[in-house]
């Protein structure tokens, strides 16, 4: 072993250790930010390790440097700009986009190696001579393409650029996807047998498979899909690691792949959906239209903002239940104004955060944190549920399915079994909503029919602004 090899070995080892510590630290609130930086540092370290190794052994041609610099600058620049500019509400689609590009990168590496076999260096770079290389190239292309097209479709759907076509909700989609899957398998084995030309078939059909699998999935399940695709991009990276013979790539890819799977599982649990039903069940609303859930509302009480303000003023304890509607209306800052006023009046305010509030688990916490809501006021579902009977007023803002009592009471409901917030236990519930439309699941919400529930119709931001005005008139929060 000569010096460059030893240096690279040590750096790789260190990088793996730091990456593992980084992922570990990211799962605790206190250490998360440092852990993220640690992981970023480990990644830069790994680049230094790789470049110093090549400088010390084969050397790096000027021409290579030029292309390295062009690629790095453009990629980093666009990544940094997007990361700085993107609003917090579009976080899920941003992660999907980044993720898709990671998959694309692995795909391109495998493609490049497959089309232009690199002449042998001091390592055994005899591509397409061994079965293993062919398999890893095929896997890298297959998974990379699915990750890329799947992520892009997920992003487009979340952005609202793409709707769910009708045929994707019928049984036809299973047939179509099976055709794509079989075609990719054929191309896969053809490629392994040494038929290089089938590489394009593999690229095309696995791209189509990524689209076909993601397209039927409804918006509510998209976070799970993004998390799963994130896991795939790890697998694609690991496969690329086999292609270029890099242990570091394999370890890091495998770690992300496995951690992504666990995270997907955790998310599924929070939404009371199994991974199988997310992937093959189509969107939830399509299944439930004929079920017991859809019914007419019989006992809706609607009330004005003024009444709402009067009730709030007289309350001792208020729980806010924020949902996706709040995020869409960009009303988190206005909400913070309202709660500040209430707090100044000595009213206890707590935010009840359902595990899947917002569009991704933890997304609502990010949005509220952005609006300067103290972290201590955010209470998780299990903590806050026993508090509802002792609560005077609950404000439901743009949340729907997560406060549906059907999940507890109606065993025939598709929501049955999903953990929900027991808001109906509170004395008064105000639901601020634009209209009577159903939530993501498309299921009637029994909460709206209860006698202690009043609907305040209107856009969340406008209602909250009016509420601030009313509270001002009542002299709340002006001491």
């Amino acid at each position, binding site marked *: 072993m000569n010096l460059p090899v030893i240096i690279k070995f040590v750096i790789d080892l260190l990088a793996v250790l730091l990456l593992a510590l980084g*992922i570990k630290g990211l799962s605790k609130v206190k250490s998360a930010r440092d852990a993220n930086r640690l992981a970023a540092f480990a990644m830069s370290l790994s680049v230094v390790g790789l470049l110093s190794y*090549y400088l010390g052994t084969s050397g790096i041609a000027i021409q290579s440097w030029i292309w390295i610099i062009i690629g790095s600058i453009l990629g980093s620049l666009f990544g940094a700009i997007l990361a700085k500019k993107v609003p917090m509400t579009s976080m899920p689609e941003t992660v999907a986009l980044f993720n898709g590009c990671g998959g694309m990168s692995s795909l391109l590496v495998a493609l*490049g190696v497959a089309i232009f076999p690199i002449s042998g260096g001091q390592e055994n770079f005899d591509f397409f001579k061994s079965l293993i290389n062919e398999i890893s190239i095929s896997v890298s292309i297959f998974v990379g393409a699915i990750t890329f097209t799947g992520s892009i479709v997920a992003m487009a759907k979340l952005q609202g650029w793409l709707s769910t076509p009708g045929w994707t909700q019928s049984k036809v989609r299973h047939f179509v996807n099976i055709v794509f899957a079989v075609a990719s398998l054929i191309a896969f084995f053809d490629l392994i047998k040494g038929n290089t030309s089938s590489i394009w078939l593999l690229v095309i059909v696995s791209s189509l498979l990524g689209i076909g699998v993601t397209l039927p999935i409804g918006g509510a399940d998209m976070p799970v899909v993004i998390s799963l695709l994130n896991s795939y991009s790890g697998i*694609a990276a690991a496969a690329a690691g086999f292609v270029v013979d890099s242990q570091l790539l394999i370890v890091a890819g*495998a*770690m992300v792949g496995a951690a992504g799977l666990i*995270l997907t599982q955790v998310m599924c649990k929070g939404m009371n959906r199994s991974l199988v039903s997310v992937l093959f069940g189509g969107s939830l609303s399509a299944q439930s239209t004929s079920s017991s859930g859809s019914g007419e509302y019989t006992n809706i009480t609607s009330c004005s903002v003024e009444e709402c303000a009067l009730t709030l003023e007289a309350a001792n304890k208020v729980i806010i239940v924020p949902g996706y509607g709040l995020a869409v209306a960009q009303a988190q800052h206005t909400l913070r104004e309202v709660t500040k006023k209430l707090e100044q009046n000595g009213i206890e305010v707590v935010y009840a955060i359902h595990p899947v509030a917002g569009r991704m688990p933890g997304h609502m916490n990010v949005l509220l944190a952005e609006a300067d809501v*103290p972290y201590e006021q955010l209470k998780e579902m299990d903590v806050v549920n026993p508090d509802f009977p002792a609560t005077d007023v609950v404000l439901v803002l743009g949340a729907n399915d997560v406060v549906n009592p059907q999940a507890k009471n109606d065993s025939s409901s598709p929501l049955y079994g999903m953990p929900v917030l027991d808001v109906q236990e509170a004395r008064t519930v105000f639901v601020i909503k634009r209209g009577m439309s159903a939530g993501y699941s498309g299921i009637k919400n029994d909460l709206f029919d209860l006698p202690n529930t009043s609907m305040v119709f209107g856009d969340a931001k406008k209602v909250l602004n009016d509420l601030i005005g009313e509270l001002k008139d009542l002299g709340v929060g002006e001491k």
Partner: protein
Amino acid sequence: MSFISLLWVLLLGSLLGLELIGKVPPTLHTPLMSGANAISGITMLAALTLIVKAEGNVPLLIIGSVSLGFALFNVVGGFFVTDRMLAMFSRKPSNKK
């Protein structure tokens, strides 16, 4: 590196990943997903290798460079966006008197 030892690396890496995140508070699901996503851009090392080994093959250099660009977009963007999210959490305690 023999193929068998690479398989061992794959196996141990996967086991490590499964163990690393046992319990995650829901608050951190989004940042964790985004951070892990940034790490999956480690495939930039493969792109770098491709460029270095291209030996003047221009199409290969271009493919490698585009691949590197995509990967770094993922890595740099991913880490920045994660940091932006996490900054909002860590700012809290100092704000509170």
